[in-house]
């Protein structure tokens, strides 16, 4: 590994990392919010709406992320959607992950023991209160581990963004590799970097998971 | 005089700091039926599982028909753990019936019974099938031979489990709360099979909560509390005239809950 080359390209690599983190954060946030909204609307039990959402989820879970990106970035202009690569990347990550998050939230709602809801209703709580005080807290607690998991998966998907020329880390790395003929070293460094990143984020995620779950359980108890 | 079927002397077992069994002594003669009763956590199951060495014990000894199980005496006089092959051979002679049946879900009732005959006793497929069918008939389930455990009721599953243990022609049988996991109305069919086994002269050691069954079928009752055998003797004496306060207290709560 030629460290001189690395040093020269440090600024662009750092900027690339910044773009990676930004895309991951923005895409993830978009996905979680959108997924949550979808899950909520799904609960309204309106058949035509449900069907529409079902199609959305099946399409975004049943097709490769790369193809979705191409559709948005290359195909977008043909339906009036002219986006910059990075924006397209964030939108892509958001839509792609929202389908998964929607299913995660759905699972969270399903995991709430029916007995708890029945107890709340028997005691005379209004439906909106049942939702806010009983269903939602329990559902969110159940959803935290799979959400953390999905966010980790999403962090790995950001490398795909390089294919549509988003200037994230992988893209900068490949530029450096092409300009300095250090392809192997560059990709090796990338592999090691991502491995360490994902491993440490996973461990952090697990710790965060137990903390958040404990916190939310406590909050629910006090509510 | 031949050795008793089961001989337990000074048995001890610790789980870390907690002493599960201490100084347990028990003798079960041939064709005897002994029921172990006592509160939960008293060590009944642990004791039973030490007999076929599913649990290891730390002190004392367990002898099956005179032969030490789990350990063997080395030539230099010390005692060491029994080898795997010897242990397997001894286990073949001991039948065990579990609380949760432990039938293998990917095999039919027939295959559950025949598989040990094939793999452990070395019978060929035809012989094993014949013997298995005979055993299933013995427990009244010949018509369910091809059924899978998921299609059988709890009582039927337990009877298949008994057939599986019985098919090996063991010298004695251990029962670990055989009816505790069953719906009340299915308990009877299992107890009937066990009664008939006793009548045929099978040596049986049964951990159970079924006091009625114990009172009528057992030759002896042993009461365990906190890792020790507190009282032991014929059912009439233990159930009605026990000198031990702990036994009387246990039976009292039982009576209170069960007479209506």
């Amino acid at each position, binding site marked *: 590994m030629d460290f001189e080359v690395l040093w020269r390209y440090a600024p662009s690599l750092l900027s690339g990392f910044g773009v990676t983190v930004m895309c991951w954060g923005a895409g993830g946030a978009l996905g979680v919010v959108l997924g949550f909204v979808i899950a909520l609307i799904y609960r309204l039990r309106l058949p035509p709406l449900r069907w529409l959402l079902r199609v959305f989820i099946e399409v975004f879970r*049943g097709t*490769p992320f790369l193809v979705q990106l191409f559709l948005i970035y290359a*195909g977008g202009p043909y339906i009036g959607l002219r986006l910059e690569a990075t924006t397209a990347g964030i939108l892509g990550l958001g839509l792609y992950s929202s389908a998964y998050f929607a299913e995660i939230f759905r699972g969270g709602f399903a995991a709430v023991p029916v007995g708890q809801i029945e107890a709340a209703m028997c005691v005379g709580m209004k439906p909106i209160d049942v939702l806010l005080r009983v269903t939602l807290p329990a559902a969110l607690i159940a959803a935290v581990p799979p959400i953390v998991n999905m966010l980790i998966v999403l962090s790995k998907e950001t490398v795909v963004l390089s294919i549509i020329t988003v200037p994230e880390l992988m893209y900068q790395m490949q530029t450096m590799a092409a300009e300095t003929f250090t392809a192997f070293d560059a990709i*090796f460094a990338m592999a090691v970097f991502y491995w360490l990143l994902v491993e440490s984020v996973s461990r952090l995620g697990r710790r965060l998971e137990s903390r958040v779950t404990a916190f939310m359980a406590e909050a629910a108890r006090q509510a | 005089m031949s050795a008793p079927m089961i001989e337990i002397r000074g048995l001890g077992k610790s789980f870390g700091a907690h002493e599960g069994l201490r100084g347990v002594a028990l003798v079960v003669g041939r064709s005897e039926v002994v029921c172990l009763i006592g509160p939960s956590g008293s060590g009944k199951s642990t004791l039973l599982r030490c007999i076929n060495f599913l649990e290891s014990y730390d002190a004392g000894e367990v002898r099956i028909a005179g032969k030490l199980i789990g350990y063997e005496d080395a030539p230099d006089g010390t005692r060491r753990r029994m080898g795997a092959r010897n242990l397997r051979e001894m*286990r073949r002679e001991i039948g065990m019936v579990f609380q949760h049946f*432990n039938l293998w*879900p*990917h095999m039919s009732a027939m295959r559950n019974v025949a598989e040990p005959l094939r793999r452990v006793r070395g019978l060929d497929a035809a012989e094993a099938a014949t013997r298995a069918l005979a055993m299933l008939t013995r427990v009244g389930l010949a018509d369910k031979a091809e059924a899978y455990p998921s299609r059988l009721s709890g009582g039927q599953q337990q009877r298949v489990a008994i057939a*599986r*243990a019985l098919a090996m022609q063991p010298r004695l049988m251990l029962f670990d709360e055989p009816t505790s996991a069953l719906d009340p109305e299915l308990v009877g069919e299992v107890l009937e099979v066990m009664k008939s086994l006793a009548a045929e002269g099978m040596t049986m050691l049964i951990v159970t909560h079924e006091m009625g069954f114990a009172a009528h079928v057992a030759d002896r009752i042993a009461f365990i509390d906190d890792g020790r055998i507190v009282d032991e003797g014929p059912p009439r004496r233990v159930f009605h005239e026990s000198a031990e306060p702990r036994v009387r207290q246990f039976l009292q709560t039982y009576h209170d809950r069960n007479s209506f």
Partner: protein
Amino acid sequence: MHPQVILHSFGYLTQAAGTTLAISLAGIALGFVIGAAVCIARLSRKAWLARIGGVYVSVFRGVPLLVLLLFIYYFLAKFGVDVPALAAAIGGLALSSGAYQSEILRGALAATPPGQAEAAVALGFSGVEVWRRILLPQALRISIPPLINEFILLLKASSLVSVVGIAELTRVSMNIASLTYRPLEAYVGGASFYLAINLGLAALGALTERRLAGERA
């Protein structure tokens, strides 16, 4: 919107779909062998073997597939090994999938109720026999639904091998897009093929799960 683009390229897309399926099947099969080996290593009583297994899973789940594919490609190029891109692609998919499959198998083994092994031991089965007759058959049954799911994921991941030039579904869609200047239709076409295959697989998965659940209930 010019749907006739999709119609005209239907033949190419079908052929490409076949390539995608073939690559994915090869990848999952090889991945199973790797996954089984890694799983056995992780369960080994030899600490060093278990560690190697653990590191394998950590590395091949942590490194993104795209990075892995390019790594294999450049690795082989650097050391002058002339391996066709196809082999590199399948190898990459297999190495990655192997890590996930080993975890699936590990979970399946853990899910088998211990009482069943105990009954076998009490009857006098040897350790090997307990494995062969009781634990392994059940573990395989339990792992089928998650393995089908893994196959669906692998199929989608295979779209990344387009970057090493293999003429699978994504690459062919890209080609159609650049030839016809109609990326929307091209990618909708490609996506539809992926969707059709995945819906079929999902149905298969649901069917298998129901049948297996009935057996174990």
